[in-house]
């Protein structure tokens, strides 16, 4: 039944032609209040990398590429057009003319070059620097030998050429992530390390006021190059509000969007109330929660044992434990990700079959092991459910509930954590491309000390296929590339490196006075909300 809900959501996502979003008859004006629990850390696009500032940065800055609102479909943003060389290593971007930064200066190709150099420079301490590894000359900049990327050249004020050291089919996605936002050199140099508190971009909104620890006010960029966008005149972000308080305020009409979503404690109450039926929005996330099994630690070196674990876990029950805020998973990729295999059925829930597999592996009497888990709710409860499921086939798993950093550290050691439940630390894609779900968490590159491949699964054959898939840069090969990735992830499942458990769904709410298609309130890329396209009903 969960699958039908999901299929419906996916169809809706695909069918959203966005004509209602782009419609010209929606008047600009009005304002909204968005609340968050934590302080906003920074609005520097080279540094910001959390749930809260991700979409704020997208509203303040633009990159060469972006995604159509509410979807995972790439579209041109500051790039008016681009060409890709036949071998897929040279990208030439033609920039829009007349785009102005919030300080009034026109954005040119020099700014693109400056921004890419800045984010790659180790002095910037960008957590996203690694995404630019395919640009020619990155290694020299990264090691401090060079200040500028050899591969980035300004052809003329409105043309920039980027040469890669290897074909990279994900490069357009890289140009769409926040880290490649275009920033003006003079503002960065003026504010130095405090640029994140005084952001200047080309985005739909500009930062008008920031009272530390209290609120931020975004004002509509009247000179924004995209006509009719954004819809609102002003957005106020109020910080320091617990999700439960935020929800109460929304119910009393004091706030419009709870940025942290509907808190678990209130979930059943709110979703069960007919008054809020039309205001609650559900959306998919590019997220998978999984159990890793360290293939370097016996008995998980045996395929049958890993398969048995896959068959022992009752995923439906785990989804019920978290009040149905997820859909069961049978493969690493989330359903909204290109390359997801809708025909694949995965391992069935079959404890008897699992016991047979254990017997085949010579472990008919079971064995003792440990499962590491992040110690905040609901993760320990989920681990207990997995523990009970494993006990039913004779595996006695001791739960090690630890702080997040400790679990991550244990996973990064080759011989410490036999099993890890990934909840609370799990992979959410940086961009909607299947390759982002492979390299660091399932590829050989991630199976290193301090890495994120906690299964320590390293299949060189698959790594080769992955490299091949990422070399298919021709847009005409899109389908072939997705097919290649589909095969890779199904092979991973054949080897049972993970036991995928569920894909989290996002639930949020909006006040009655806000308009806009549901998809932008649970935007898969502009997380959590695509602020640029929200409109106010009271000014229509």
């Amino acid at each position, binding site marked *: 039944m969960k699958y039908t809900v999901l299929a419906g959501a996916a169809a809706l996502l695909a069918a959203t032609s966005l004509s209602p979003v782009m419609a010209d008859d929606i008047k600009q004006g009005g304002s909204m209040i968005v609340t968050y629990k934590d302080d906003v850390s920074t609005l520097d696009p080279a540094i910001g990398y959390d749930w809260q500032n991700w979409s704020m940065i997208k509203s303040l800055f633009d990159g060469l590429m972006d995604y159509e609102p509410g979807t995972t479909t790439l579209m041109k943003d500051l790039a008016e057009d681009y060409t890709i060389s036949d071998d897929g290593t040279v990208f030439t971007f033609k920039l829009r003319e007349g785009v102005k930064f919030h300080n009034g200066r026109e954005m040119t190709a020099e700014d693109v070059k400056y921004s890419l150099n800045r984010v790659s420079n180790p002095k910037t301490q960008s*957590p*996203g620097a690694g995404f630019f590894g395919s640009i020619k000359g990155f290694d020299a900049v990264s090691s401090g030998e060079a200040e500028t990327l050899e591969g980035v050249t300004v052809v003329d004020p409105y043309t920039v050429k980027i040469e890669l050291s290897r074909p990279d089919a994900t490069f357009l996605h890289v140009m769409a992530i926040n880290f490649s936002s275009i920033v003006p050199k003079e503002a960065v140099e003026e504010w130095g390390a405090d640029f994140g508190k005084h952001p200047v971009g080309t985005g739909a909104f500009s930062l008008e006021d920031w009272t530390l620890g209290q609120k931020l006010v975004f004002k509509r960029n009247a000179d924004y190059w995209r006509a009719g966008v954004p819809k609102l005149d002003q957005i106020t972000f109020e910080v320091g*509000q617990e999700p439960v*308080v935020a929800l109460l305020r929304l119910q009393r009409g004091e706030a419009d969007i709870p940025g942290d979503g509907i808190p678990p404690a209130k979930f059943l109450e709110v979703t069960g109330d007919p008054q809020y039926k039309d205001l609650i929005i559900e959306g998919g996330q590019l997220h998978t929660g999984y159990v890793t099994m360290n293939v370097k630690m016996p008995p998980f070196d045996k395929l049958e044992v890993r398969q048995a674990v896959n068959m022992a876990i009752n995923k439906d029950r785990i989804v019920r434990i978290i009040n149905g805020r997820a859909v069961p998973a049978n493969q690493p990729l989330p359903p909204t990700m290109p390359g997801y295999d809708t025909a694949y059925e995965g391992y069935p829930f079959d404890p008897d079959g699992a016991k047979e597999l254990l017997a085949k592996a010579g472990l008919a009497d079971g064995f003792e092991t440990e499962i590491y888990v992040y110690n905040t709710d609901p993760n320990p409860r989920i681990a207990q459910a997995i523990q009970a499921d494993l006990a039913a086939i004779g595996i006695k798993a001791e739960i090690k509930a630890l702080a997040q950093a400790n679990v991550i550290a244990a996973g990064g050691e080759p011989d410490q954590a036999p099993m890890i439940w990934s909840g609370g630390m799990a992979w959410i894609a940086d961009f909607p491309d299947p390759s982002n779900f492979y390299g660091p968490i399932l590829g050989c590159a991630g199976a290193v000390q301090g890495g994120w491949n906690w299964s320590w699964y390293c299949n060189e054959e698959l790594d080769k296929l992955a490299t091949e898939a990422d070399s298919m840069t021709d847009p005409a090969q899109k389908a072939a590339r997705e097919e290649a990735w589909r095969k890779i992830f199904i092979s991973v499942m054949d080897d049972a490196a993970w036991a995928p458990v569920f894909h989290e769904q996002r639930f949020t709410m909006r006040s009655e006075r806000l308009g806009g298609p549901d998809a932008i309130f649970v935007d898969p890329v502009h997380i959590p909300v695509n602020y640029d396209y929200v409109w106010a009903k009271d000014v229509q």
Partner: protein
Amino acid sequence: MGGYILRRTFQSLLIMLGISFVTFVLLYLIPADPARQIAGRSATAQTVENIREQLGLNLPFYQQYARYLAGLVQGDLGRSYLQKTEVGALIWSRLPATLLLMAGAIVCELVIGLTMGLIAALRRNTATDTSLMVLSFIGVSSPQFVIGILLLYVFAVQLGWFPIGGYGTFRHMVLPSLTLGLLGAGWYSRMMRSSMIDVLRQDFIRTARAKGLRRWQVLFGHAFPNAMLPIIAMIGIDIGLFMSGIVVVESVFGWPGIGQLAWQAIQRVDIPIIMGVTLVSAMAIVIGNFVADLVAPLIDPRIKLR
């Protein structure tokens, strides 16, 4: 007097140094890797190494501590790992809210505590006395997050008299001040009661009554000021009590003070902020005690500073 102040100042500085050392050691021992945290999950090993070097996290412990102290004497509390802002600026911008909340709490605890204590003392060993003391006992022993959420639920959510958390107007201030002040009010009512009972037994009270003063004149002119003495000394010490309370109260009410800053930093292991807030709080406690000691002889000449 001058010598006393000098000696106390020196002692205070030593205490601060000790606190900074202990906090630094504790935070150093936390098994989290700040460099990896800043670098994020997509970072390469080289990026992590670069960050570690830039922050001096690869240095031995004593050098890291020396660097921190060197910054500290210049008034530099460092830069937040996650907020990427000067810790000093973050604390400074949030200090007014915290001070305002504390002032509100002091008013609440004095008004409520002294009134309750006074009534209880005058109605000693009656049902009024007993019920007031039970109330004060509840005030002292209830966790603040319970009181806070309870007040929020009843007066903000159900009755709608006050806003549900936030900051800005007098109405925003009432519930958090009350929550923070109730604990002290409990203590004060008990202290006031016993101190008042004590004073009322004194000879000078009987003399005052005997020379024909009215009951309320005796009460407020003679008894009350004397009963207040031990309590005034307490207010300074209270600041320490508040410092632990604000972390909870500010988080419950979304009050933008340094307690909330500390709570967010603890959750995200933002070490420079935790360190900074700890030092500022410790300083507030040290200064609070110091001032209380200085003020005591001004109020009661029998106390001498040595």
